[in-house]
């Protein structure tokens, strides 16, 4: 199932959080060889995890991490503006209608449906909160993956050439993308709505109006 969790609520899901940070270490430190810090518990965490980002996480039936990504508003401290300005023509991308998405991560044995579910979660966030775009940094070979999943970003800048080029891309939040992502993720529209509502609604009985 899809979960939308702010960092300060991750302690309510200890298994999910621990496996997410361990899968991140596996993907970014071990498999991709990025220069990221891994702590003594084998978890990859960085300074942006300390800024109370919003995570979109695929939770497996056993409560462990299947895949995840991390959102921060571009009007605050974020990676695109602090580390990747060379990909945006030196422009500090800043708008309350643009959130950055980083640390797109899959558990080692997750399949394409989990990727599609995560993309779906990102779309639900953008549409649910009336955003315009999400911005992210990825290597060029991911473009094919995003295209296959049904939601391709527009590349606005890159460094390097070929498959290993580093790209900055924009995902536009467009409601017509939903059916395609739902189908690829194998999730019904009603289910997706329920997951979103559960995360951002305190309780069904909660109403400001005494009925």
């Amino acid at each position, binding site marked *: 199932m899809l979960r939308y969790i702010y960092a300060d609520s991750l302690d309510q899901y200890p298994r999910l959080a621990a496996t997410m940070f361990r899968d991140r270490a596996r993907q970014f430190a071990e498999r991709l060889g990025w220069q990221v810090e891994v702590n003594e518990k084998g978890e990859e965490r960085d300074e942006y995890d300390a800024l*109370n980002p*919003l995570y979109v996480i695929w939770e497996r039936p056993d409560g462990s991490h299947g895949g995840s990504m991390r959102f921060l508003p571009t009007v*605050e401290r974020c990676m695109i503006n602090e580390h990747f300005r060379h990909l*945006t023509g030196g422009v*500090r991308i*800043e708008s309350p*209608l643009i959130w950055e998405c980083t640390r797109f991560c899959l558990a080692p044995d997750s399949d394409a449906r989990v990727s599609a579910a995560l993309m779906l979660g990102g779309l639900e966030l953008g549409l649910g909160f009336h955003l315009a775009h999400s911005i992210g940094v990825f290597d060029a070979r991911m473009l094919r993956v995003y295209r296959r999943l049904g939601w391709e970003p527009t590349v606005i800048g890159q460094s390097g050439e070929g498959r290993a080029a580093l790209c900055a891309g924009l995902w536009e939040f467009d409601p017509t993308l939903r059916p395609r992502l739902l189908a690829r993720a194998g999730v019904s529209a009603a289910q997706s709505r329920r997951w979103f509502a559960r995360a*951002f609604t305190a309780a069904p009985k909660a109403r*400001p109006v005494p009925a």
Partner: protein
Amino acid sequence: MRRRLEALIERLAEVETVEALTELIHALRDNLDVEHVVYHSVNSTGQQYGILTYSDAWVERYLEQDYARIDPVVQGCFRRFHPVDWKSLDWSGKPQRTLLGEAIEAGVGRQGLSVPIRGPNGQFALFSVSDNRSDAEWARHTAARVRELILVAHYVNQKALELERGTDMVPVRSLSPREIDALTLLAMGYSRAQAAESLAISEHTLRVYIESARFKLGASNTTHAVARALTQGLLVV
């Protein structure tokens, strides 16, 4: 309606006193066609600052009861960055029901939407609108305006920080050379397509540069952004 909101944003950019900002918040209430508009800011040392259209009696009551401690709006928005409809919050506790009853009595309204803002150095602000419409009408009314509300919330916060601290204390949101290039070409009458071609970037990329520059300039639209940049001497045309 939209044109008038843009005009208000243009006025907001020129505001230089707290009185003028207060007046503008009242004008926003009329323009957004809601019962109330509330801007509330707390900095890292706990200093509070508010500009709002509530009655004085309600503000006094709220402060005297220290309702911020139990207010689901404050609790539900703190450290968050997504817009929050008050309906999505938990009002089921006894103190919350009491607060809600009193708020409705005081004319706050039974509906609300808040935009949380996590500002510099641990500053936190809430920009809220409240109203008395039915659930369905409120959903329609806000859905059409959330984007504008989010932008206005951030502009009001920037302005409030500027007034509160004096302009010298606000981190300058300087434009990068590429943003200045983009605005300069538009100021010279280039179309977006021509400007993008001249800068050897895609129109998508140009759009993001302009959106970014617009936000930094506190501008209502592209034309206003160009005008603001010109008056601030950022462009040499």
